[in-house]
């Protein structure tokens, strides 16, 4: 067995190693965060007054880090298009989704664009723009599965992500024998690949990306929901909301919405349905 001095020597070596790792880690982290700030500063340059936008990044394809620094994604590029229409330059700020509505209500940033569903609960705290995206859920299964859609989920083991519309849809319509809420979406997809669950209900764009990346799984049905995404601002800031709504409508009318949508979702946007949803929201 170890003698006492050898044990002390071993501990000393381990400690030195640990310190080295920690120091190296901190150095790396520090430099990356400084490059991040320069990226956002750069993107803030250019025409128009800056519009600060909070977003929980990453949530691809809605928002993610751009390879050349800064952020990109459907939300980011659509906000840029809207900004162009109203003469404001958006600057995205990475934020945690749990506190994002509180933060905008307290003025930490002017707007929130983070694939956020418009809900009554949230409307108590913030004001939402007109809907800019129709939420659609997808049923993901293993390739060659006998599940062909929502109706076949009866008596099956189904997974979804915690706190999402997909989970709600599963509770209300799937009649699954067991519905498993995973903390993160990719965990559910992994369980599907592993064969411990037979289907996953998740946001359609996310499902599409996962199916392409992982392989061996496919989308069998897309289910439209009543839910829409909106841009949130501080309650009472009607001026900004009106500007954003106007910019959004212009972006839809002049085709820049379609361009951004096709770039990120690789399909044509459901413009008719979206315009109907906008009309409904306006009549409220």
């Amino acid at each position: 067995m170890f003698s006492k001095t050898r044990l002390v020597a071993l501990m000393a070596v381990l400690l030195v190693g640990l310190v080295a790792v920690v120091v190296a880690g901190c150095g790396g982290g520090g430099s990356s965060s400084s490059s991040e700030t320069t990226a956002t500063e750069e993107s803030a340059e250019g025409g128009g007054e800056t519009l600060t936008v909070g977003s929980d990044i990453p949530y691809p394809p809605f928002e993610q880090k751009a390879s050349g620094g800064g952020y990109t994604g459907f939300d980011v590029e659509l906000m840029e298009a809207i900004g162009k229409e109203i003469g404001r330059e958006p600057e995205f700020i990475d934020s945690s989704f749990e506190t994002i509505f509180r933060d905008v209500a307290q003025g930490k940033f002017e707007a929130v664009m983070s694939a956020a569903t418009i809900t009554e609960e949230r409307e108590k705290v913030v004001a939402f723009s007109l809907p800019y995206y129709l939420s659609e859920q997808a049923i993901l299964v293993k390739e060659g599965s006998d599940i062909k859609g929502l109706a076949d989920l009866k008596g099956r083991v189904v997974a979804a992500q915690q706190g999402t519309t997909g989970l709600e849809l599963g509770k209300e319509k799937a009649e699954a024998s067991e519905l498993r809420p995973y903390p993160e979406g990719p965990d559910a997809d992994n369980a599907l690949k592993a064969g411990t669950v037979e289907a996953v209900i998740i946001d359609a764009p996310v499902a599409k990306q996962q199916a392409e990346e992982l392989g061996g799984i496919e989308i069998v049905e897309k289910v439209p929901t009543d839910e829409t995404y909106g841009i949130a601002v501080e309650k009472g800031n009607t001026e900004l909301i009106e500007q954003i709504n106007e910019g959004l409508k212009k972006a839809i009318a002049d085709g820049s919405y379609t361009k951004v949508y096709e770039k990120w979702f690789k399909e044509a946007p459901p413009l008719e349905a979206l315009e109907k949803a906008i009309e409904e929201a306006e009549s409220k």
Partner: protein
Amino acid sequence: MKVFFEQYFDFHIMGEHFGEVFEAFLQNLLIFFVAAIIALIWGLVLALFRQAPGKKFIPIRVLTIAYIDVLRAVPLLIIILMISGGVPFLDFLPKDIRIPHWLGKPDPFWYGVAALVFVYGAYMAEVYRAGIEAVPSGQMEAARSLGMSHLQAMRHIIVPQAVTKVPAPMLNELISLLKDTTLVSVIAFGESVLVSREILAEQLNSSALVLTAAFFLVICLPGARLVDYLIKRNQGKMSRGAHIEVA
């Protein structure tokens, strides 16, 4: 202050979801009982392997020590995620082991039990070892001199005495084990933390988590007091001679 109470002590939300959270808490207790029983046995086996005598058992001793050291050093959460995320893919194992559905419980339940047994078996082995080492070495020597084998001496002389010394530290381990059953929520098993987080996401309110914490308090607080009592009683036994001297 009002916001604080609304966020953590909304009795309306607690009442509305009481049944749901309570049923989920019973799942925590179920994982606890299954994992505790197996881990108590597994820990004793490990402790005995670790004490195996002589040269020919060196490989077993080394392997056991390595197992105990590694499993005590790696976070339980990682073990849970590794089992759940990887075992179903190991297609050289039979399907009933890769994706277990024994006794009508779903696979995340068994992945959780397995992880808890692996890790807590290692912790408990150390508790048993402390108990075994607390038995005076003369006991083993006396037993061997009566012609008992090492195993017989363990079985009839050492382990029965060691077991009387472990309840207090073992109860501590069991309290930790009960609390750590909540970690199984990360692999989507419907226990109390998972259910209350779901309520948190729906209602933007933490009261259901407070309710879950209350259930754990009700079980764990008396447990902790019992540990204190057992330690005190043990000390009383040990220091009895001293008391007589003082008096």
